[in-house]
């Protein structure tokens, strides 16, 4: 898939995110939009997965450690064909299989329930260790927030993954720089993120989270890295793709009203049309 095709899918993923959160009247659009390109690349280029067989044994696994960006995961899974895009509008509604945070019991394609921060990376490490124990060659991916890495358990897991040389594990940090209470470096700075993961015996790659050439190169490099897990520190823009949400902490956990929803969808529609001209 070329970059334009990936950008087109990511744009559709963004439309789904905004639509789902608008319909739910709550949720987390900012971090969902910042991770949309990474999510798209994972499910459309990188991972060995099959929407017709979501539980196939040799599939690559994905754990959304920053579980609050469930809309990004759901919208990507819907684009991939795990369930109808139309169902995104049921997000957070009573009885919906699209829970506010990922629920592996109810949603096709979700490999692990998550949402309580800092815990998903441990599960991903366990899955990666499992492959090593039984000589299986699936790979494991987990997406963390830059605020999330304030949780101590992240570093317990990082120490474990480095110690166990889990080179089938890729940790991606969505470094959008914002958390609920403001800038991550004002709240409780996690920087330098790359040096921290290096110190925990990871191979570390810094990239622009919205540049598919860099994303592609990073995942290829991770695949070729032996004896160490890889951490991809992806510098992103919170709210990416919807101008009034970009780089604004208040869009971490609030939904657009009808008027803002129309503006956002119009922007994404235009972005989609521009990509078609390419």
């Amino acid at each position, binding site marked *: 898939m070329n970059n334009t095709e990936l950008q087109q899918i990511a744009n559709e993923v963004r439309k789904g995110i905004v639509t789902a959160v608008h319909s739910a009247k709550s949720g987390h659009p900012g971090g969902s939009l910042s991770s949309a390109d990474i999510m798209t690349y994972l499910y459309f280029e990188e991972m060995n997965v099959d929407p017709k067989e979501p539980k196939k044994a040799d599939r690559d*696994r994905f754990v959304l450690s920053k579980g609050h960006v469930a809309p990004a995961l759901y919208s990507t899974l819907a684009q991939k064909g795990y369930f109808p895009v139309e169902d995104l509008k049921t997000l957070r509604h009573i009885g919906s299989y699209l829970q506010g945070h990922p629920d592996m019991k109810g949603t096709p394609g979700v490999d*692990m*329930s998550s949402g309580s921060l800092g815990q998903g990376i*441990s*599960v991903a490490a*366990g899955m990666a260790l*499992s492959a090593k*124990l039984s000589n299986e060659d699936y790979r494991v991916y987990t997406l963390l927030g830059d605020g999330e890495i304030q949780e101590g358990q992240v570093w*317990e897991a990082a120490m474990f993954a480095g110690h166990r040389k889990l080179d089938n594990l890729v940790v991606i940090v969505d470094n959008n720089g914002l958390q609920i209470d403001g800038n991550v470096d004002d709240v409780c700075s996690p920087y330098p993120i790359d040096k921290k993961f290096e110190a925990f015996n990871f191979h570390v790659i810094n990239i622009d989270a919205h540049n598919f050439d860099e994303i592609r190169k990073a995942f290829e490099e991770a695949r070729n890295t032996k004896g160490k897990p890889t951490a991809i520190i992806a510098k992103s823009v919170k709210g990416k793709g919807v101008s009034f949400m970009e780089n604004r902490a208040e869009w971490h956990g609030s939904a657009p009203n009808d008027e803002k929803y129309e503006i956002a969808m119009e922007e994404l529609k235009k972005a989609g049309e521009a990509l078609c001209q390419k």
Partner: protein
Amino acid sequence: MSEVKKYATREGYGAGLVEIGKKYKDVVVLDADLAEATKTNMFKKEFPDRHIDCGIAECNMMGVAAGLALTGKVPFASSFAMFAAGRAFEQVRNTIGYPHINVKIGATHAGISVGEDGATHQCNEDIALMRTIPGMVILNPSDYVEAKAAVQAAYEFNGPVYMRFGRLAVPVINDTPDYKFEIGKGIVLKEGKDVTIIATGLCVSESLKAAQMLKEAGIDAEIINMHTIKPLDEELVLTSAKKTGKVVTVEEHSVIGGLGSAVSDVLGEKLPTKVLKIGVHDRYGESGPAAGLIHKYELDGEGIFKQIKAFV
């Protein structure tokens, strides 16, 4: 009278792990730098490749166990009760309980019989914590034989199981030919008509001693070994309570939220009956030899006898 054999239930955990390790290739044992104390070192010796020491990081260990279980292994995550149920409570709740993942938790050093290490390591709250997690099975074996049986049963059960083991050597009481362990089925060790004693863990053998003293005092007690706290054998509780009209629960755990509360919940709703809860009364433990503490907290035969005599 021949000397009764005594082993800690944690020894049964270690031996049980070795047994299932031999039978099933998918068993993986995790520990958090306590392999000697939890007895998982017995498994480590036999199967070093399937023993994963996670270091002193119990929260991560629970997540790693979930990941292993989701990819076809049957992990037994092991630590002291304080850290398995206490420190890692939210990991157990959200990462194992909510997705109902097939993780087994082996929690040793439960209760005040930890002894000299004192209050920080004496977990009297783990049953209460684990009971609140929907779908969690809680096993609290009474001796070495039952501890081994619990490990086998936990392996066979599909879903999360919390197993509680002790540090103190306790008498072997279940080495009988007809002994059978079934999750959720309490065992009547002695029938009686005056009072029902429902005991769990090391308090089962102490309750048997108390029953002997009660007999000499003219009180005929029924003794139930309630090795499964959740799901509770409600039918057995109701049947026995109906017969005797008086119920005593005995546990090396807080009287808040443990076996006593579980039994009271059932009786309160279905068959209001006078209940005496023997256990640790809303306080922390302290340092001292385990047997001395069990005596001080009136969880030995003599203490149980005294409290029941005053009750009936």
